[in-house]
């Protein structure tokens, strides 16, 4: 494996699709742009301190995830429901969308490590090994965090 990080532009080009899809899924099209920009600004700032052997996809997904959480929080603070122009159709069934929203809110309320594990697993579609790399723990600990996160969700989300 190379001893140096790829030029940032290559890193951006490699991971922009998965980050974009993740952000559109989790904050909606309107806010995805700002979250995307903030994600890569944060990544650019931290980039030189990264170890070259780091899992870059997992790393950028955790940043995107925390930006998405910030967006959820600031939307909650604004407290005024914002109508989201849905430019991509088909528009999901309203009931399902509401349940999804509730589910993601519950995920957002999990402790950080469990939240990361759940989001990276289900929205990032990362395997346990990459979740572990993203969170910075062992694979076993990542499995445990995921399990604990799911247990907590079971208590708060009506099935």
């Amino acid at each position, binding site marked *: 494996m190379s001893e140096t990080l790829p030029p940032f532009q290559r890193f951006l080009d490699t991971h922009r699709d998965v*980050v974009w899809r993740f952000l559109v899924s989790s904050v909606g099209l309107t806010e995805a742009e700002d979250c995307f920009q903030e994600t890569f600004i944060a990544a650019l700032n931290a980039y030189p301190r990264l170890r070259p052997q780091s899992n870059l996809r997992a790393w950028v997904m955790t940043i995107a995830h925390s930006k998405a959480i910030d967006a959820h929080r600031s939307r909650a603070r604004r407290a005024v429901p914002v109508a989201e122009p849905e430019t991509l159709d088909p528009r999901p069934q309203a009931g399902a969308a509401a349940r999804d929203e509730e589910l993601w809110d519950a995920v957002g309320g999990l402790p950080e490590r469990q939240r990361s594990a759940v989001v990276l697993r289900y929205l990032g579609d990362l395997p346990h090994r990459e979740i572990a790399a993203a969170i910075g723990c062992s694979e076993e600990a990542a499995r445990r965090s995921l399990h604990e996160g799911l247990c907590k969700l079971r208590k708060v989300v009506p099935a």
Partner: protein
Amino acid sequence: MSKIQDSNGDELTGALGRAAARAQRRTTPSGAAKQESANAAAAAARRFSERAAAKGLADISYAALDSPFGALLAASTASGLVRLAFPEEGIDPVLEGLAQRLSPRIVEAGKGLERVRRELDDYFSGRRRDFELALDWSLIGPFGQKVLHATAAIPYGVVLTYTEVAAEAGSPRGSRAAGNALGSNPIPIVIPCHRVLRTGGGLGGYAGGLERKRFLLELEGALTPSLG
């Protein structure tokens, strides 16, 4: 579509999986929408790079510039132009070299590097004799800096020999070392190493190929087509 599966699947993991699948369907439901999502991601990435380059958030920004030699890759730091590469050097190897030697915080400037583009255009069309671009010398070692500073001082249309440049750089007997320093000039054309010839009038060498050295010298009127 979703790869998500859980061996101990229950209602919650099922709901998560379905919610994630719906989220994915919403963004990537079919070929056309997938393309749309990829285009949106590419556009967002472009906006990011342009802003990062414009605001100086990255350490290095680069752009491909048209020239009679094909697309030159120009890279700048806050101090100035640090690298100008011929097309056959390849974008990736050049950027990887910069990442290794200077910083990996490299972004594509889009419409940036406007000044470099303009001065090169003017030079190639004969409207400009001297470059006024700020240069970043950090890829060049101490001896190389002496040689290339001496080279940068050679006026438009004038040629010196390797020995003369070595003498200007303070090592009269270092013409071979001077030749090596010129051969690894990271900013050719702007630092005019093409103006240095072999004693006796032979063209000598050129990292970009002798055809280009001849082209530049003819452009500057320093070479009659028979020479070299």
